[in-house]
């Protein structure tokens, strides 16, 4: 460990689709209460969903989990879920905004929109994680994170409930880490410790 080590990352962004609920239960449920970065999550949910998933996850996790609010400033130790039917975007200064621009990759919220805007704001101080899911949402966003010097993590496709989203990401990006879901919490904690 370096002396006076400062957390080298300012945020973690996660994209997940099919199989997302159980993956998030495990991943967010395994993060310690003092997790040193905010976690921003896009999971593909139906347009009429309420904040039930965030409420449920909050009861199961030691970190705080909530649905993102408009112009909220992100803080460490909290996971923010994109609300149904809105894109979630990060502004300079670390606040969150929404848009109702057309779906991207047939999805709103779209992982790409979160990843690309987060990469613009956090640059190399960002970790992007693509988990289980169908389709290709998240691939372009992960590429942007990589190009901005951030850290990229993709769930091992064979380990994913649905493999096409991680496979698509791996086709586009030479990921820094390709790991099973159960290794990701430890990996994140290690990366964030610097």
């Amino acid at each position: 460990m370096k002396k006076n080590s400062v957390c080298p990352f300012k945020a973690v962004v996660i994209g997940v689709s099919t199989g997302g609920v159980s993956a998030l239960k495990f991943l967010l449920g395994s993060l310690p209460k003092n997790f040193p970065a905010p976690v921003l999550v896009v999971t593909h949910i139906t347009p009429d969903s309420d904040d039930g998933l965030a409420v449920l996850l909050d009861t199961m996790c030691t970190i705080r989990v909530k649905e993102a609010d408009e112009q909220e400033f992100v803080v460490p130790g909290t996971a923010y879920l994109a609300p149904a039917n809105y894109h979630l975007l990060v502004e300079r200064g670390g606040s969150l905004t929404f848009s109702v621009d057309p779906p991207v990759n047939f999805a709103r919220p779209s992982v790409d929109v979160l990843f690309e805007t987060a990469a613009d704001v956090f640059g190399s101080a960002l970790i992007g994680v693509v988990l289980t899911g169908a389709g290709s949402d998240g691939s372009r966003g992960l590429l942007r994170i990589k190009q901005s010097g951030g850290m990229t993590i993709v769930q091992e496709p064979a380990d994913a409930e649905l493999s096409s989203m991680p496979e698509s990401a791996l086709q586009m990006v030479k990921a820094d880490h390709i790991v099973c879901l159960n290794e990701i919490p430890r990996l994140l904690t290690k990366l964030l410790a610097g």
Partner: protein
Amino acid sequence: MTPEELFDIEIQLLMEGVYQVYGYDFREYAESSLRRRLSQWLAGSGCATLSLAQSQILRDRQFFDTLLRGITVNVSEMFRDPAFFKAIREQVVPYLKTYPFVKIWLAGCATGEEAYSMAILLLEEGLKGRFRIYATDINEEVIRKAQDGIYPLQELQHFTRNYQHAGGTGSFSDYYTARYNHAILAPSLRENIVFAAHNLAVDTDFGEMNMILCRNVMIYFKQSLKERVLGLFDSSLLPGGFLCLGTKESLEHRRISDRYDTVAARMPIYRKRYEKK
């Protein structure tokens, strides 16, 4: 300096120029959405950078119009968020019925879907001939589309489902005629709507409204512009009038919030208080 930082500077310079030349003020728009929309527009513009495009944007009105379209076009749908329209029907309309005539301002009407949805709802609730909807948008091109009231037929299935979930009491197919893969809304719906251009960032208020709807428009604005627009709404709304925002918007922490009561639980529907005499 990173390419992203440089792009941000180009955006600031361009928006200042656009304001001075055309009077459209995007300087207080939230940056991340604006950045995405501008980079999409740029990709299709044939220009390598925003700086190179700027010269033509400031001189060529038609070219500027393509940019305006790129920045301001919003997509909508009829009865978007059915639960919201159900709440309007059940918890707001009973109050509206007590007025001889009801004036409604729908700010940011885009291509008109929401205005027609409101017209259908109020007609079904027996307010025929007793209401007018002033539907405004910054973009004159979408207003022309809104006036036409013609939508791709493939969207109608979705609109119909929304209508049913929103508590529609009739048959949605009575409100349109299908022709050549398009649905033309009944002209009688349009009789209740006045479509007009209005720019929330620079124009003044609309007087004496009983209800104002502005859903998912201010999410694109920074705090300062949000406060300006809410002030505009506050001065346009009669006491006892209703202010309706998008699902993820609220009046919390806003300057005007202490003059408003929440009407429905978990719904961004507010009612302006009567001044205490």
